[in-house]
């Protein structure tokens, strides 16, 4: 082998090693943004559940207008297409992620969980203004839907 070729190979190898180390330790900007976006989306679920949950738990008085507004937000959020959040390479092996690898290996199961939440929140939005008992009855399945997806697809905290 010529000296020049040797140097090219050595440089290529060095780049490969550096590249692998970079991929393991860092996310691309797009990956980081996708992760931030999906976690913010989850945060919006929690935020909008706040008033409905507090009413369902009898901590604050029932208010039809507030319940309807929050439930409509939830239904809108849950119906959004979220495919772009779940980019490859952002599972729980990455710092800051609790997304289980099964989201990618069992994408159909994951989508089914997302659809269940969309249906449960739409049902809640339809009755949230019809009185406390109606709201409470529709609130239960929403909680179960959050729990059922977290049970299967969210990794334990570290």
């Amino acid at each position: 082998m010529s000296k020049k070729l040797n140097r090219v190979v050595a440089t290529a190898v060095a780049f490969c090693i550096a590249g692998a180390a970079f991929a393991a330790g860092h996310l691309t900007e797009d990956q980081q943004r996708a992760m931030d976006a999906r976690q913010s989306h989850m945060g919006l679920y929690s935020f909008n559940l706040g008033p409905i949950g507090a009413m369902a738990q009898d901590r604050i008085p029932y208010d039809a207008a507030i319940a309807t507004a929050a439930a409509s937000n939830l239904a809108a959020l849950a119906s959004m297409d979220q495919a772009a959040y779940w980019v490859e390479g952002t599972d729980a092996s990455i710092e800051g992620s609790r997304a289980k690898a099964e989201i990618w290996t069992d994408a159909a199961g994951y989508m089914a969980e997302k659809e269940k939440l969309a249906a449960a929140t739409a049902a809640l939005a339809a009755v949230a203004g019809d009185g406390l008992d109606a709201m409470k009855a529709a609130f239960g399945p929403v909680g179960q839907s959050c729990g059922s997806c977290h049970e299967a697809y969210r990794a334990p905290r570290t």
Partner: protein
Amino acid sequence: MAKWRIIGVLALLVVGAGWYITKPAPLPSDALDGLTGDPARGEIVFAAAGCASCHTSEDGPPTLLSGGKTFASDFGTFVAPNISSDPEHGVGAWSDLALASAIMRGVGENGAHLYPAFPYTSYNKAELSDIVDLIAHLRTLPPSDQPNAAHDLAFPFNQRIALGPWKFLFANSDWVLQEAASPELIRGRYLVEALGHCAECHTPRNALGGLDTARWMGGAPHPSDEGRIPNITTAVLSWSERDIAEYLKSGFTPDFDSAGGEMAEVVKNTGQLTDDDRAAIAAYLKAIPPVAE
């Protein structure tokens, strides 16, 4: 030569004595005399004890106790057996006494030790009358003809006889919270320490797999080796009793995140209890000593 023979005989005696004091000890044959099971009450015991969390299949209905779920541990992988009412593949043909001995003493059908992946080390503190009710409820559930799968354990953990000394060391029926001052705390202690087996996940284990009671509910590594199960003593968990009770009902934390992992399964069970029982569990968690991280 003679010396070796004596040592050999002594060794046999030690092993024999060890086997004798650690041999499987089922309930005495008259233990259930005078008790009749009430299946309706047993349904609550079944929920509080979380049998369905382990004995249903991954996606089967919550009443079909077909077994098949797997549990990773440091000793290998356990597979939950079929405990449905099927007489051949389930436990339909077992007597009440045999079932109660399995649940409270960890003794299987043919008199062998059962593995403590089945939390009989908690259920041994249950009231016999509750267990008889629970068994009456089990008999009302549908049969499943799913055959049992073998555990996948490394030597020597695949030797059931080795469980004798383990039980001798770790299976005692003392309460961890020794002083329970009110009826509510007594109930909470019963629901947590005996039926709910919360410590099986929330308390760390020693090298032999026994619970480290000095760090009771102080959090533990997740058995999958990924992540941790949280510390739920007051040193870390600052929720009010009401917050805890609501979490056990709906799975929602005070800021409306939602329980995940194995705890989502547990909430399916605690969600079936009464508000008073959930409040009793919360009172218990406030009464145990804080364990610093």
